């Protein structure tokens, strides 16, 4: 089945499946692409960017270029995506050829043999022109299990008018500066709580925590031997810092119940001067239909601290080929098509491209110069959340620990220490 995989040299543009067929035949492999009509089933998620319409349009272009391949699309909410993939693959249905993978899943899915190792199919141009952080999101132990597709991280959004009213001409470059500005904004009565976060008991909180930990001593969670490192160093410092901003009244206390959309709503309603959020907020907060602060929205790379200029949590997603797929060649070709530079450039105003050269192309960056400038800096230092096969269980436990510390039930060190003590159980 996979013989044609290793045999096929990585092609630059894989729309010509006929060539693949010839190669596969030459290899004597079992797969026979383009011998007849092929139907792929692809699982994506419902989101702001790329939207269902965008994905449908990209897919249509793929079908036009490969007339023998039909792609059926299915979209589910992010919350359902992981479970949908696991139950479909392990349950034996095996309905999907490609699935969308969050950057935190390749380890788990590779170990469970749900997705294929596609290292040999990733073209050389990926290594040269894609941000290394985007590549990392599809990898586990040096092998590719997904073609990186969406490159995303959390940027610092700020309200230009509020900063100006408090006498600041520049956005903060460090977290200390941010707190000083927030203090001034609060003291001047411009807004009650200057900073808003997504710190509810969810993955969103882990993302903010990771991003902060990376500049506060390093986002070092679990070492190679499987020992807990998250109850000390950067992660502990970051959590204590988070709690302190709540205690000081600089962070909105409602943050501990907020998800990303609540952050966007609060910021768009003029209820915060600063917010950490994904790229998608930029367009929406600047849309006068949905936002009271349209036109005042600034975005910069996430602040640094103590010599580290910036850091971002790796919130990328990739397209993986399932083990159950009967048409892996077409599935890989489809994934590469979706991630190709022309496709990403076409929709660059909706979702930031992962191709470095796109950032040098004025025709592309002019759609949102501020955002591209911020991304060009922050994409150089994206950090992964723990890359472990037991990530989902670990994240659930850490989410509770963050909540315990942020709501004052336990001191940060104790809350994280309790999870560290339970780690062997989680790893089992």
């Amino acid at each position, binding site marked *: 089945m996979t013989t044609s995989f290793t045999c096929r040299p990585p092609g630059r543009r894989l729309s010509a499946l006929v060539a693949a067929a010839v190669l596969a035949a030459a290899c004597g492999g079992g797969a026979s692409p383009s011998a007849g009509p092929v139907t792929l089933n692809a699982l994506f998620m419902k989101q702001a960017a790329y939207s269902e319409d965008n994905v449908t349009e990209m897919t249509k272009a793929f079908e036009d270029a490969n007339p023998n391949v039909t792609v059926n699309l299915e979209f589910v909410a992010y919350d359902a995506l992981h479970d949908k993939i696991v139950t479909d693959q392990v349950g034996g249905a095996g309905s999907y050829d490609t699935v969308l993978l969050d950057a935190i899943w390749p380890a788990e899915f590779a170990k469970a043999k749900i997705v294929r190792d596609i290292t040999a199919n990733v073209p050389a141009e990926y290594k040269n022109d894609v941000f290394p952080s985007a590549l990392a999101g599809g990898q586990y132990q040096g092998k590719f299990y997904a073609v990186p597709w969406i490159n995303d991280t959390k940027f610092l959004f700020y309200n230009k008018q509020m900063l100006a009213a408090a006498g600041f001409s520049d956005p903060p470059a460090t977290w200390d500066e941010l707190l000083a500005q927030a203090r001034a904004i609060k003291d001047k009565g411009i807004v009650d709580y200057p900073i808003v976060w997504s710190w509810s008991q969810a993955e969103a909180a882990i993302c903010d925590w990771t991003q902060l930990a990376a500049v506060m001593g390093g986002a070092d969670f679990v070492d190679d031997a499987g020992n807990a490192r998250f109850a000390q160093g950067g992660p502990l410092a970051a959590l204590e810092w988070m709690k302190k901003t709540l205690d000081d009244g600089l962070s909105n206390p409602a943050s501990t119940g907020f998800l990303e959309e609540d952050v966007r709503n609060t910021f768009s309603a003029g209820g915060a001067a600063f917010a950490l959020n994904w790229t998608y907020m930029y367009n929406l907060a600047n849309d006068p239909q949905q936002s009271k602060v349209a036109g005042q929205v600034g975005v910069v790379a996430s602040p640094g601290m103590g010599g580290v200029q910036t850091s971002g949590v790796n919130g990328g997603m990739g397209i993986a080929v399932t083990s159950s797929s009967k048409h892996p060649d077409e599935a890989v070709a489809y994934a590469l098509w979706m991630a190709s530079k022309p496709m990403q450039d076409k929709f660059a105003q909706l979702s930031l491209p992962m191709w470095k050269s796109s950032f040098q192309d004025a025709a592309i960056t002019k759609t949102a110069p501020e955002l591209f400038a911020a991304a060009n800096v922050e994409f150089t230092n994206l950090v992964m959340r723990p890359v472990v*096969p037991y990530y989902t269980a670990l994240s659930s436990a850490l989410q509770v620990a963050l909540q315990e510390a942020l*709501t004052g039930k336990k001191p940060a060190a104790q809350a994280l220490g309790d999870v560290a003590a339970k780690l062997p159980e989680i790893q089992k």
Partner: protein
Amino acid sequence: MAGLTAARRRLRPAAVSEAWVAGAFVTPAALVILLVVAYPLVRALWLSLHEVVLTRPGEEPFIGLASYAHELANPDFWAAVGRSLSFTIASTALELVLGVGLALLMDQPLRFRWLLRSLVILPWALPTIVNALMWRWIDNAEYGALNALLLQAGIIDSYQQWLSNPATAMWMVILADVWKMTPLVAILVLAALQGISREQIEAARVDGAGPVSTFRYVVLPLLTPTLLIVLVLRTMEAFKVFDIIWIMTNGGPANETQTIAIYAYQTAYRAFDFGRGAALGYLIALAIMLLAAIYLRLLGRVGRS
């Protein structure tokens, strides 16, 4: 017509064949029940005795009662049980008291009684999901109606984080459940109230009993069987509560609203530990059966007296 009579005549002499026909009619339903009830039960029991982690396909060793033993020794499990009990006791007690009160009100010869009765049933007619979403909005810290109401009434001086504060989250969930389920109690109690003959109440009045003693010594004892049935229904439902909490708080903040059903769900579907999830399912079922057994004995005693 003639054909049917002939068919009846052919069937009648042989009682055996009648049993066959009955069997044939029952079989499809029995098969369906077997498929959707019996199979999952057996399968879950099998899962609970094996180590089955979905993300580790292929290895499913038999581990006996180890999953059960692990949970019974797990403080997280008992914390979740404790939260389920708090939810159950508080919500059931409030629903019973408010439900009886409402029923007594609706039983009075008021002018717009029909309107009152239709209004009261409304919360119960709402799907749980809608109810939960609605309360999540009402309780929202930034733009919720509850904060606005309390602030304008001068009860609080700043917006409160109802759902993200560990001290209040469980109460907000209980409030939402009480708002939805009190009508059910009220309607059932109202039906029972209308079954009580006016003569008995009038006799008590003639004997000099005031409204309070009439309620305490005449009405309440006659309501007891209904109240017990309501109690049984509500405790069992409340003990396995899932949807309203899942939508309002997701089990948070800091697991403060993580009841036993949420805990079981998270074990089975977050960690994909189906073995332990199935064991938890059986433990919950056992707890509810225990409750049912206690209530059935109580009901039997009431029925006999």
